[in-house]
């Protein structure tokens, strides 16, 4: 009731914002409709290739074992679903409606200028004693920003998917999952309490699992889905523990209540630090940070638009959102902030170094995503929440563009291979080369995204990355993080180290992205004579979204210009997010608004740009696409190159340290020892089975006596006479009442 009254007084009540429930429900409707369509199993052969048999495209050898054994080769039979056209309308249509509504709500919020969060309470979800959890949505500056990113980028990726997936027999199922994902993602960002957020959190995990294993008939794809699901469980465990601890210490689980009550916790105390660290464990799982990042590269087994939407733009950024949402807690736990920054920085450079030696175009982008997520955590960890969220946004633009661009490349390669019956790997860069002649639009747009992610001005990534690195640098003196320590190391030193690691990672980013571009689009073409004739740009339904994303990647920086470069309104996003995160940022900087001298700032920007430019230049100078040979002729790597190409053997290490011991215990102790040895041994004492191989020819004196006696007694109870049953009943009642009487 209290919440309702608050909502009644809010300036947003009565505006379009009261339709916030419709935002997630539209994609849910899309899920239901597409899900129903997908139950209609009938397919008809598509117009592209009417004569092709399904077995042809699925022939053994179409996929080759690719390093880690997981590969996202987008081979699929050409067999269009009967209701493909309807699905093409419903799937993206729901997202378009949702995006329009989000825009309307955003405009209403700007007009209202309300600083208090707008909470819409729908019903009481878990009223258990002291715990009151409502099904409520919270609209504030942070959540509407996330909604805009999710629905906006989501719409573009949905439209792209129409071209990319339409000839797949599981087309309606694909869109059902994709719509369901958007629904859960919106629940995640709109939920007004941690438990409701957790519902979305688990839901997107489910959709991620479903879509990674979308082509589940390949065991490797299904395994990749399982891996993502299981690794994420570890993180979710942390999230759950954090919620339990919040309830035990604060007594509230809704954001407003927690933020208000968190002030009563001791600053930098064990409780709030532990809560924050467990929350960060959840983030590390969802957002693929060390040590739980291993699932994300394997997740590339899903269709490429899924990689763009879920595993680059939105879901994996949920951890960043969670920390930004819990900024009040993290502002009170500087030690946890240091952990976040350090893990982010180490992840950034670690993943970037792996990206240097990957050959699968999507694997490069996957490690790039892990690395960029590390940057975001550096931002939110150091208290620059607006900068972290800003990078989340620009990253959504350029990484979605990169993935969709790679999807466009794979689409072209695959179509060419399909025509000629070639079974090479359509995702390996060694099989590409010189594609700029065939895919000019994709080429230009991918270069924009590459420059953006490398941090070259004036593209979007430059501004956001610079904001994060600048914040890490400026917070190393005088902030609460500086006065805190982590394992005895002063916080200032850790921040400086993270800054240097971040710069090094920026250098590597420039190198591996340029390398990807060079090998894919430049130099001679290595795809083969016949295939070359079939390479062509994808239809406009696919390049259109790319163009929009290209514009956003190029000009996304204008959303939040630094004071240094007054090319338009300064710090629009900072001011927009100020009601949500401003206080916490100030608290971390001890109440002082950080004013770095312009000269220092110019120096920092100069260093960052110089490093990025040096990376690109180095890649151009040292990498020779002309000398590359197709995958099947490629020589083996040696030395450290081999370590990088095999991703530091982390998967193998996890296998050896965790998976194998568990399996060995299960087999040796639980199966052979406990089950066969003890349980079966006892059973064998009494039962003599004719087909008991383990003890042939031996006779046991008591054979079968005990079970027979028990069976006889049991059968006597079942006389079938109602009178007996009544007696048994009365005796039972006597016992139950006796338990009351003689307590």
């Amino acid at each position, binding site marked *: 009731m209290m919440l309702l009254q608050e909502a009644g007084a809010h300036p947003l009540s009565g505006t379009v914002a009261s339709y916030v429930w419709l935002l997630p429900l539209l994609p849910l409707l899309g899920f239901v409709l597409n899900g129903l369509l997908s139950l209609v199993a009938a397919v008809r052969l598509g117009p592209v290739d009417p004569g092709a048999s399904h077995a042809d495209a699925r022939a053994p050898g179409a996929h080759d074992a690719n390093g880690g054994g997981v590969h996202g080769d987008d081979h699929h039979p050409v067999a269009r679903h009967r209701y493909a056209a309807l699905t093409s309308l419903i799937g993206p249509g729901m997202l378009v409606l949702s995006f329009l509504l989000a825009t309307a709500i955003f405009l209403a919020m700007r007009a209202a200028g309300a600083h208090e969060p707008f909470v819409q309470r729908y019903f009481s979800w878990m009223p258990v004693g002291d715990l009151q959890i409502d099904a409520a949505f919270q609209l504030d500056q942070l959540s509407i920003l996330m909604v805009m990113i999710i629905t906006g980028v989501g719409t573009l990726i949905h439209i792209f998917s129409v071209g990319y997936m339409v000839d797949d027999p599981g087309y309606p199922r694909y869109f059902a999952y994709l719509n369901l994902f958007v629904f859960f993602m919106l629940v995640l960002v709109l939920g007004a309490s941690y438990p409701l957020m957790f519902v979305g959190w688990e839901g997107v995990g489910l959709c991620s699992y479903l879509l990674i294993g979308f082509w589940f008939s390949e065991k490797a794809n299904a395994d990749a889905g399982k891996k993502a699901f299981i690794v994420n469980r570890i993180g979710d465990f942390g999230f759950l523990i954090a919620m339990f601890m919040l309830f035990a210490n604060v007594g509230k689980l809704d954001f407003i209540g927690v933020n208000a009550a968190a002030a009563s916790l001791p600053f930098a105390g064990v409780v709030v630090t532990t809560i924050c660290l467990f929350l960060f464990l959840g983030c590390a799982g969802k957002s693929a940070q060390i040590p739980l990042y291993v699932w994300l590269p394997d997740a590339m087994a899903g269709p490429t638009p899924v990689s763009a939407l879920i595993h680059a733009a939105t879901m994996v950024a949920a951890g960043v959102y969670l920390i930004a949402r819990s900024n009040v807690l993290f502002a009170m736990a500087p030690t946890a902030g240091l952990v976040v920054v350090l893990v982010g920085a180490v992840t950034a450079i670690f993943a970037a170094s792996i990206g240097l030696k990957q050959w699968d175009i999507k694997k490069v982008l996957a490690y790039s995503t892990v690395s960029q997520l590390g940057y975001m955590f550096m931002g939110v960890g150091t208290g620059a929440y607006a900068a972290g969220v800003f990078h989340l946004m620009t990253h959504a633009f350029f990484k979605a563009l990169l993935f969709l661009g790679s999807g466009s490349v794979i689409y072209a390669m695959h179509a060419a291979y399909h025509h000629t019956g070639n079974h090479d790997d359509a995702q390996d860069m060694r099989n590409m080369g010189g594609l700029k002649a065939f895919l000019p639009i994709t080429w230009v747009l991918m270069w924009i995204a590459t420059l953006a992610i490398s941090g070259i001005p004036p593209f979007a990534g430059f501004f956001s990355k610079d904001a994060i690195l600048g914040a890490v640098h400026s917070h190393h003196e005088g902030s609460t993080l500086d006065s805190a320590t982590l394992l005895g190391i002063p916080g200032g030193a850790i921040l400086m180290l993270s800054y240097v690691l971040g710069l090094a990672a920026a250098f590597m980013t420039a190198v591996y992205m340029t390398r990807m571009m060079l090998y894919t689009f430049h130099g001679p073409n290595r795809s083969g004579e016949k295939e070359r004739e079939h390479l062509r740009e994808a239809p406009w339904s696919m390049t259109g979204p790319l163009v929009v994303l290209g514009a956003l990647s190029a000009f996304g920086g204008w959303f939040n210009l630094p004071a240094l470069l007054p090319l338009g309104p300064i710090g629009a996003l900072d001011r927009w997010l100020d009601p949500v995160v401003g206080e916490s940022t100030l608290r971390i900087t001890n109440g002082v608004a950080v004013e770095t001298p312009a000269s220092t700032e110019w120096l920092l920007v100069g260093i960052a740009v110089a490093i990025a430019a040096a990376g690109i230049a180095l890649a151009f100078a040292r990498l020779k696409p002309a000398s590359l040979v197709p995958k099947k002729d490629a020589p083996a790597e040696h030395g450290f190159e081999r370590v990088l190409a095999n991703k530091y053997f982390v998967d193998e290490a996890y296998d050896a340290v965790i998976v194998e011991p568990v399996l060995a215990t299960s087999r040796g102790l639980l199966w052979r020892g406990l089950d066969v040895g003890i349980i079966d041994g006892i059973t064998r004492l009494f039962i003599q089975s004719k087909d008991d191989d383990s003890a042939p020819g031996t006779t046991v004196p008591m054979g079968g006596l005990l079970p027979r006696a028990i069976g006889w007694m049991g059968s006597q109870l*079942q*006389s*079938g*006479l*109602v*009178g007996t*049953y*009544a*007696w048994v009943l*009365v005796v039972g009642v006597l016992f139950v009442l006796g338990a009351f009487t003689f307590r």
Partner: protein
Amino acid sequence: MLAESLFFSAVLFTIGVVGVLTRRNAIIIFMCVELMLNAVNLTFIAFAQVYGVAGQIFVFFVMTVAAAEAAVGLAIIIALFRHRQTVNLSNINLLKG
């Protein structure tokens, strides 16, 4: 009169139990069950006097259920008798699997 009501109710209920345990005629047992139901009703009415009228409403529903139960139960007994020519439960063990 709450304590007295509970006393009478307990005695009537126990008499019903005795009937169920010692008789073998299906109809008599059925009537014993009705007696037990009535004993419980008395408790409800007694509590209604001190805790509010909801107890009486509950009795109202118990009566309805008892009426339905009597209709179905007696129909079962008739069908049983038609089949076996007896209502003596010692001779009937259809429940035995």
